[in-house]
């Protein structure tokens, strides 16, 4: 029963493609998977926007959307209809073609990144040997779309937003990729499926071998997550669209459906990088404890994804935004060195074994590097809490 | 038809286009674009020969292309930095403006 539930979608796909001729079967399967991904994550996008608004509202002691549908959960449908029926305004001076292509150029690579995510056991739409590279290659293409949007609008704010976005995405690309190299080193594979399989609990062990359970893995996970925040332009790294400074950044001149596409691409990017974080560090679809193996694998994946999304929302409700130079400093002077330190640490871990020796050697390195780099980052700007005096009288 | 031929013709055409552009365009950035296209054409021929060529070594062509990509990235970075410096001095990116040795 558990196994059937686990492989439900795989069987379904097999059943759908089996009568087709051999030559086109993989392509049809890919197309069906893509459609399923679009449908599932499209729905996720809608629900996440509502959940985010409700959660942030609660953090701010408000009620949040509660009018459309039960508890306001159909708000996204209302918003969708609204954006679809809105007038699509293109500025007269805009570069019409590029302006039109930009949202598509943003959405397509983001959707492509989902193809290599293993959503469950045997549930990878495109099980490439170089899956991780595919993920990063597709992710890197989004920057160009952001530039296209910002430049073609012929708006100074959007241009500033695009410049910020590109600088930020380029800078965070490095720690984003570097933090995963440790995982690749340890598992010896670029294939996402193999990386997940390597993290399953070994026979006889009760705890899974998730990378996040190791000192270097924890640090790399945090780095990856921070970089994912930056890559998906989420607070506190939402400078490219910083509404209080440059109004809406690169999509300031987009309205109606095209704006919805940008919005959707942002959320899908958040899902895909969270999904990759789950895959690389949180064991993908594997259960954390061996005795929980009976839970269907895709439930684990989506559960972990949900936890990460909740974290994204929580952070958004809390933090102010960084400034551009601080953002750069953080990427180049804190995250990049830390990522570089984590790499040899992972190697040491590999040779010291996963016992107490590994912990003893690697944990101090990671913590020490974190503390020192953090202190130098803060100390250089002389940032500290202050005490205040009062007038004499 | 020999499948190597269309691939090579694409590479040759790409190279010719890149060369024409690099010679004709005056904007330094576009000249650089032309050079990139030529490099890519060369890369394509490497990969084609790796795939279909008679060389028994299975990886040399691939490796050459890989290194070529790395070199192209370095070349682009330095070239664009030079263009920025040129722009700072001359307030233009036209190559015709860079006609003296002294800045």
């Amino acid at each position: 029963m558990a196994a059937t539930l686990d492989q439900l979608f795989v069987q379904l796909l097999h059943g759908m493609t089996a009568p087709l001729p051999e030559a086109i079967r993989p392509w049809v399967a890919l197309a069906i998977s893509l459609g399923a991904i679009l449908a599932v994550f499209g729905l996720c996008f809608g629900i996440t926007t509502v959940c985010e608004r409700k959660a942030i509202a609660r953090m701010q002691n408000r009620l949040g959307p509660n009018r459309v549908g039960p508890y306001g959960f159909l708000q996204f449908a209302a918003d969708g209809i609204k954006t679809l029926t809105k007038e699509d305004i293109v500025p007269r001076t805009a570069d019409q073609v590029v302006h039109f292509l930009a949202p598509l150029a943003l959405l397509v690579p983001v959707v492509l990144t989902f193809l290599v995510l293993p959503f469950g056991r045997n549930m990878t739409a495109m099980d490439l040997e170089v899956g991780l590279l595919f993920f990063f290659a597709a992710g890197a293409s989004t920057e160009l779309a952001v530039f296209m949007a910002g430049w073609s609008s012929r708006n100074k704010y959007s241009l500033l937003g695009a410049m910020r976005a590109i600088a930020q995405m380029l800078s965070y690309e490095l720690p984003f990729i570097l933090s995963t190299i440790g995982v690749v080193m340890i598992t010896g594979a670029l294939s996402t499926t193999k990386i997940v399989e390597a993290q399953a609990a070994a026979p006889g062990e009760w705890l899974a071998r998730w990378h996040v359970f190791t000192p270097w893995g924890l640090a790399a996970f945090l780095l990856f997550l921070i970089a994912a925040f930056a890559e998906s332009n989420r607070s506190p790294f939402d400078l490219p669209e910083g509404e209080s400074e440059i109004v809406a950044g690169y999509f300031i001149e987009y309205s109606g459906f095209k704006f919805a596409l940008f919005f959707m691409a942002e959320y899908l990017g958040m899902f895909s990088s969270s999904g990759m974080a789950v895959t690389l560090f949180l064991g993908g679809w594997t259960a954390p404890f061996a005795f929980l193996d009976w839970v269907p694998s895709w439930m684990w994946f989506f559960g972990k994804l949900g936890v990460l999304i909740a974290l994204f929302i929580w952070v958004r409700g809390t933090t102010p935004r960084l400034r551009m130079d601080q953002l750069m400093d953080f990427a180049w002077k804190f995250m990049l060195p830390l990522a570089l330190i984590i790499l040899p640490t992972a190697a040491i871990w590999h040779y010291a074994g996963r016992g107490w020796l590994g912990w003893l050697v690697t944990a101090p390195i990671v913590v020490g590097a974190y503390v020192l780099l953090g202190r130098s980052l803060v100390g250089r700007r002389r940032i500290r809490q202050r005490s205040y005096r009062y007038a004499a009288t | 038809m020999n499948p190597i031929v269309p691939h090579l013709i694409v590479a040759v055409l790409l190279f010719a286009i890149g060369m024409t552009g690099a010679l004709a365009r005056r904007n330094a950035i576009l000249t650089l674009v032309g050079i990139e296209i030529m490099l890519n054409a060369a890369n394509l021929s490497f990969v084609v020969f790796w795939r279909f060529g008679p060389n028994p070594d299975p990886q040399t062509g691939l490796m050459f292309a890989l290194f070529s990509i790395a070199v192209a990235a370095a070349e682009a970075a330095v070239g664009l930095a030079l263009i920025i410096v040129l722009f700072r001095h001359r307030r233009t990116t036209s190559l015709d403006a860079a006609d003296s040795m002294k800045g």
Partner: protein
Amino acid sequence: MLGIGLIKGLAETGRNFVGSYLDPDRLVTVEYPEERLPVKENFRQFPFLVFDGEKADIGLRCVACQICEKECPPQCIYIEKSKDKKPDHLGKPQFYPAVFDIDISVCMSCQICVEVCPFDAIKMDQQFELSTADRFRGLLLTRDRLAKPNSHFQAIHPRDAAEIDMRRVDERAKAEAKAKADAEAKAKQATAAAPGATKAVASTPKPAAAPANEGAIS
């Protein structure tokens, strides 16, 4: 260490997230059209004209003295004095406003007109849902739409209304006493001259003032 402040902040928002479900002091939102806060007694929004009794055109307290028109800071009141006079609650003949318009779109509900009115004739209402689709007629309130009975005033400002009603009862009692005294004096002076006429003058305002009396007592 880097990140401590951030974690503190996350803890704080987390506590507020949970607290908003548990602590009514945190979740202060009132879902307006369905839920309404009780209106505070002092709350003021847009003036109205008080009238005594049942009918507005008889019991209107306003005597068209135009002080409020002069004092109104945004000058949103427009008054035209009547040609004829009507007796007020004391029986004295007074002018009344033939036209009394207030423009909602100009009025800033500052209550100055109420303060300067010597006749307690204009008071602040608490009706705040004044939006209308008609930009011109709908926003210019004429005398008939401004006039509201004293019972309305008693309902929304019980403390003020009680005080004013008491005062008016006193005033009227005094006036009646004075009228009586005058009448008696007159009666004494002209011993057998038309006793019914004075009675009629004194009794005219009675039906109009009667409800005000009841309201003040209850």
